[in-house]
């Protein structure tokens, strides 16, 4: 793993040291309770050395992990109308936003970067679960649209890395409208003949799964990632049954036909590079003319796949 030891590891380490405070050097694995030295954890791509549990990555860690040499250009999220419903629960949404922006140091729960993966031009949109649970409101939706359009413009592959609890309740129906908006975004990528890959990271749930996250040409999930539509507790209380072992985990999703590949994080970049390389190197046949696809258009692949 040369790319890892040469580039990503030191970069992630630097990043972690930057944000760490001295009394926060140790962390307990949420899966096996082992005490982990944060520096080791960062060097291990935030995977527990004891039990292999994959912890969540920040979107910038994610982009550094995936792009060649950890290098990419970040693109700001489009500006959107703030707090359109003047929403208030126990706290004002405007205040929650202010806190989240201050805590995470970004304008909303998505980071867009462009660079190359295995030499192939790629745009990645990665979620920040730390920003209000990675919830998808107008800014995130617009971010997906912008990232997809950037991919089309650059003739690049588009990779979405969701890590989200779902739609952002505080934006009401406007957050629900991000479902069709993000689907349109990835349709545009597909219509341009470019690959759209989803890397399902922990957790991918709710409205995010019920839109762009389930429409990839290829679905790659990180080991153990929680992926599903309804929350386990909601299901359990509705059907009054205990759920099967491993329910809604990446491996379970693969058995049930929703995921192509489940990978350990250390293999994620190579897997992406291989898949993109294969999809982007179709032959020039029929005299090198662009091939018209029988599956494109209104009776296209999505119809065959989704019935």
């Amino acid at each position, binding site marked *: 793993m040369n790319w890892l030891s040469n580039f990503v590891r030191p970069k992630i380490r630097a990043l972690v040291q930057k944000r760490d405070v001295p009394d926060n050097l140790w962390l307990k694995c949420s899966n096996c309770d082992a005490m982990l030295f944060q520096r080791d954890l960062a060097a291990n791509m935030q995977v527990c050395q004891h039990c292999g549990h994959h912890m969540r990555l920040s979107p910038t860690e994610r982009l550094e992990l995936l792009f060649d040499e950890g290098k990419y250009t970040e693109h700001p999220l489009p500006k959107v109308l703030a707090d359109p419903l003047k929403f208030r629960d126990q706290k004002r949404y405007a205040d929650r936003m202010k806190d989240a922006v201050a805590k995470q140091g970004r304008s909303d729960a998505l980071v867009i970067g462009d660079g190359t993966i295995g030499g192939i031009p790629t745009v990645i949109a990665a979620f920040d679960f730390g920003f209000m649970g990675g919830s998808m409101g107008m800014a995130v939706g617009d971010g997906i649209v912008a990232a997809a359009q950037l991919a089309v413009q650059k003739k690049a592959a588009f990779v979405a890395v969701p890590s989200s609890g779902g739609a952002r309740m505080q934006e009401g129906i406007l957050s629900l409208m991000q479902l069709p908006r993000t689907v349109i975004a990835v349709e545009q990528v*597909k219509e341009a*003949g470019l*690959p759209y890959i989803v890397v399902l990271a922990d957790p991918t749930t709710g409205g995010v799964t019920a839109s762009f996250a*389930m429409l990839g*040409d*290829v*679905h790659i999930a990180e080991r153990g990632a929680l992926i599903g539509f309804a929350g386990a507790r909601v299901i359990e209380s509705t059907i009054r049954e205990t759920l099967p072992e491993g329910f809604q985990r990446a491996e379970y999703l*693969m*058995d*049930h*036909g*929703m*995921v*192509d*590949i489940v990978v350990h994080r250390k293999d994620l970049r190579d*897997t992406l590079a*291989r*898949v993109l*390389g*294969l*999809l*982007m*190197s*179709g*032959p020039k*046949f*029929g*005299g090198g*003319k662009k*091939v*018209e*696809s*029988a*599956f*494109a258009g209104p009776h296209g*692949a999505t119809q*065959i*796949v*989704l*019935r």
Partner: protein
Amino acid sequence: MLNLDFEQSIAELEAKKEELSRVSSSGEINIADEVARIEKKIERLLKDTYAKLTPAQKVQVARHPNRPHAKDYIDALFTDFQPLAGDRHYAEDAAIIGGLARFKGQAVVVMGQERGHDTESRVKHNFGMAKPEGYRKAQRLMALADRFHLPIITLVDTAGAFPGVQAEERGQAEAIAKSIESCLRAAVPIISVVIGEGGSGGAIAIATADRVYMLEHAIYSVISPEGCASILWRSAANAADAAAALRLTAQDLKQLGVIDGIIEEPVGGAHRDPATIQAAVSAMIDAGLQELLSRHPSALKAERRQKFLAMGSKGLS
């Protein structure tokens, strides 16, 4: 190596050779000559036997457990294989394996029925009998190939689509029909190789191709000889009669214009020399692909339709 019932005399010679080989290591010279003599005899016997296999014997050879299976061909002929899984509806069906790969450097989509090689893997792959989700995965892979202009290569080896209550409930027939439709819609070259058994709808679902090749001793039929015998003869004991009547051999199917080429097997069948058959299959796919890649995609689709529409115009001589 499992010997088939018509290979009794070959088995006896092989046992004798084995015995002698053990003795020869103790230093007697003339034993080496004897071993060579037996080897020659085995070779001649195999050649004679396999040159005139009856249809029923071909059925046995096509189903030989040691015959190379889809995964063996994928491992031998392709590089960068990235398996893809799932139908995005219900399940991953390991009866059909498939994904992205490179064939001689060329990015392609490859898929095929995998029968497994021991109890555990046979159960995992459901003995190569796909359920609706397997055919829906096949449709998905064909659509993917079409979208990214990747040729499709399929390896056919199945007793048939899985017969079961739940498979029916989930639309086994619809899944096969849509899979045939997906083959016909793809504006990319499609090459199918029947490597063992081409079992009816379960086979044609992924074999509606521009070029369909069969291994010399493979079989391809609308129904298994056993199934046919039990319906038309009212006894599975007449399977050999059915095998002959069905005209399921590569040689007959070539004459009928149902397949485009026969890939010669090594002496004694593919299972006796996997490397040789894999090289032959590779060469045939390569030749077919080179030819098809020179065509315009829309011409490919039209010719594919025409080829299947024209079937039935040639009888057996």
